[in-house]
């Protein structure tokens, strides 16, 4: 394998000799992202400027070589995996915050800026960037925009696409464009809206203009224990049914709470069947009134051992437990396989019980930690990759869980993206015509298929679906 020498030379002329990596040992670092499956790139290019990105894509276009934009590699769906080889286009050297405008409440950042870093810097002006994936200490805003990432606080604030005002992009022919900007109601088609969440299959992103929000004067974070996942789910529906949309509403099951508490000692009740983490923000009056109202609703729905963080440090600790939950699960098994299907909120108890049964059937421990308010599941199948034949079992269990999600009127992914791991299941929710319309968009932006090939759309030659392949479930279920 490897790129032809001539191509590697062309790349070196653009980015400099040291910024092209093509020795087998060094490439191995770029074989994976945060998901299961890996594949070696033929070369990694470390871009530092928009011109670098444009130049590299021009070379790739000329030679029809796949090119896969890559940020921190924390993605959970194989979006950054070079499944057809080619060039991994690494943008983490593009990590400048170019501008923060405190009056307009906007920022312009390069794609390699780490999510949390933007909020830390913006905090000096009393502002923050709302989308907060659990990997926010490492993941990049470019990757977030490519995947349309979510996070706990997206329940109230919305996901990445609701906060991206405009982007500088590089198309498959190497041309550079700005799409959208900070004026509303722009003339023409909403290209920016289509490109956010396109998983690197339509363009590379080289600058992002985002909306910043004022840090609320008061934040209240509460924790409540419940006897079971069912009662906790009921409480979630009850809170929202009362007309209260908290900033975040997160659930952890007993397995997760045990691992988190052993690791963080945050005071999570380990005897609980499930724990809810609820946050509200606003003025002092708002948080006082809402915590009282929510506390009452949770109690009425079998909540107990309720407590509210009394200090910022205590709040941090509660969130550290939530955001670090998946790492803490390493205490149980070294590997995890994480899906992120979404169901209508009222179907949470049913789908979680199906998930539990599937885990038992395959004798695999499952830990649930997820965005309950959005109906966005995160079942973690825990395993040890060194166990014989376990991968097959894990994949089958994951597939059955997704199937259960779809059968309850859900979707394949709430915030992680389709990428490599779920592309085979797309026909479960979309008909041939639905996928055909999406493919028209792909063909307009990337007629030669060089941008992140093998993602989103099913590739029957690569991975077959084991479960019976009904198509277009959305239509069968008479959603329309």
């Amino acid at each position: 394998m490897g790129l032809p020498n001539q191509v590697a030379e062309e790349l070196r002329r653009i980015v400099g000799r040291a910024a092209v990596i093509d020795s087998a040992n060094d490439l191995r670092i770029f074989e994976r992202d945060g998901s299961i499956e890996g594949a070696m790139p033929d070369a990694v290019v470390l871009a530092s400027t928009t011109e670098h990105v444009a130049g590299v894509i021009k070379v790739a276009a000329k030679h029809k070589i796949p090119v896969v934009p890559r940020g921190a590699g924390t993605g959970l769906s194989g979006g950054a995996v070079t499944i057809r080889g080619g060039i991994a286009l690494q943008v983490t050297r593009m990590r400048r915050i170019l501008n923060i405008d405190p009056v307009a409440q906007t920022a312009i950042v390069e794609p390699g800026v780490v999510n949390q870093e933007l909020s830390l810097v913006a905090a000096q002006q009393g502002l923050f960037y709302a989308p907060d994936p659990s990997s926010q200490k490492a993941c990049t805003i470019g990757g977030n925009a490519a995947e349309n990432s979510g996070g706990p606080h997206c329940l109230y604030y919305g996901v990445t696409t609701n906060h991206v005002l405009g982007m500088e992009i590089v198309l498959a022919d190497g041309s550079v464009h700005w799409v959208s900007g900070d004026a509303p109601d722009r003339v023409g088609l909403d290209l920016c809206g289509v490109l956010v969440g396109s998983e690197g299959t339509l363009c590379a992103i080289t600058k992002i203009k985002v909306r910043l929000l004022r840090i609320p004067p008061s934040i209240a974070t509460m924790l409540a224990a419940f006897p079971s996942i069912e009662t906790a789910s009921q409480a979630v529906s009850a809170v929202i049914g009362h007309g209260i949309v908290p900033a975040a509403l997160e659930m952890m099951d007993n397995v997760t709470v045990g691992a988190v508490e052993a690791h963080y000692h945050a005071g999570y009740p380990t005897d609980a069947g499930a724990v809810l983490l609820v946050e509200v923000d606003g003025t002092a009056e708002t948080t006082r009134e809402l915590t009282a109202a929510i506390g009452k609703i949770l109690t009425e729905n079998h909540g107990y051992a309720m407590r509210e963080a009394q200090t910022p440090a205590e709040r941090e600790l509660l969130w550290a437990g939530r955001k670090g939950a998946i790492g803490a699960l390493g205490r149980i098994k070294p590997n995890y396989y994480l899906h992120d299907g979404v169901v209508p909120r009222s179907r949470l108890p049913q789908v979680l019980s199906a998930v539990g049964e599937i885990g038992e059937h395959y004798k695999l421990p499952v830990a649930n930690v997820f965005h309950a308010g959005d109906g966005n599941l995160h079942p973690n199948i825990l395993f040890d990759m060194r166990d014989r034949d376990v991968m097959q079992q894990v994949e089958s269990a994951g597939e059955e869980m997704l199937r259960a999600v779809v059968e309850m009127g859900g979707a394949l992914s709430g915030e992680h993206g389709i990428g490599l791991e779920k592309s085979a299941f797309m026909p479960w929710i979309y008909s041939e015509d639905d996928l055909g319309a999406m493919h028209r968009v792909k063909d307009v932006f990337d007629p030669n298929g060089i941008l992140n090939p093998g993602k989103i759309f099913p590739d029957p030659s690569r991975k077959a679906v084991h479960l019976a392949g009904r198509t277009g479930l959305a239509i069968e279920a008479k959603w329309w």
Partner: protein
Amino acid sequence: MVSTVAVAKPSTADELARRLHDAASQKLAVVPVGGGRASGMGGAPERLDVELHTTRLDRVIEHSQADMVVSVEAGITLEALQHELAKSAQFLPLDPFSSPGHTIGGLLATGWTGPLRLRFGSPRDFLIGIRVALPDGTLASGGGRVVKNVSGYDMMKLHYGALGSLGVIVAASFKVFPKPLRDVTVSSEGGWDAADQALTMPVAPSALEIFSDGRVLARYTGSGDAVDRVVRDLGWPVEDHSIWERHSGRAPARWARIAAPRSALRGLVEGLPRGAGWWASPGIGVAHWAIASDTPSVKEVRARTETAGGSLVMMAAPDDFMRDVGAWGTPPPTIDIMRRLKHAFDPDHVLNPGRFVV
């Protein structure tokens, strides 16, 4: 030869797709029609052979109260949908001008919004699923019925605001919202300073409108104590909610929408001809101008708006006025990409020819 316009009023999505395909295969020009409330938007049609009405597609397909999700056919009016949602103390935060009578499909195609966008965003933010009839006769869906979804491309964004240039919207799903715990509107005569004051209160207003006579309307929603406190601190007189219904009824015969970065809006509005009638949402960056002047002044204002990074789009005007000013202004720099998308979905250019920028 006098051309005759065929009028089709299909009662199912399948029938609509078939009628669209029939027309497209004969290269007949199709204009989709909803409630007709926004029909003044865009250039005059270059050709018009078939009017394809969505008004008989007017069902609520499913409203799941517990999930706060609703799916509707495109021809339902906003009022009929709100009536349904109100039964469970929910609502769609959409309050467009030129109301009542907008259809949901029309609102999605035109991208028209109103004052509540300040707090809730536009349908771009809460449209979670869409179904569209394409000129080749297929019906293509995107998104779904869950509030958070990254399964495949965001086809909602592709069609939202595309003025039916890529396909005819036949159904849509929305995330809906609970009626706020408290909802109070106050007013002032204090002009821009009052507007700034209301916008920077500790609780941000859900709607904030300023009018050319200096009047300001501010709407605060949320928890009772917080809203009461901010209303008390402002000290402005409380208004009846019917004031919003009257406001939504505004629909000048010659009407332009100025959209600009928020920081530029005041300057642009103050640069309107002396005595101009206008209203604006300074927190959003949108102003509406009831044009009493001639076309050169519209062109001047448009030039200034575009220099500031914004746009001036005609919402309604008599044909000759519209022709002279132009509906949209300078095409965006990415117009070539947009044209390629148009060609991929509507290769024979049968959908709304001449009305949109592609």
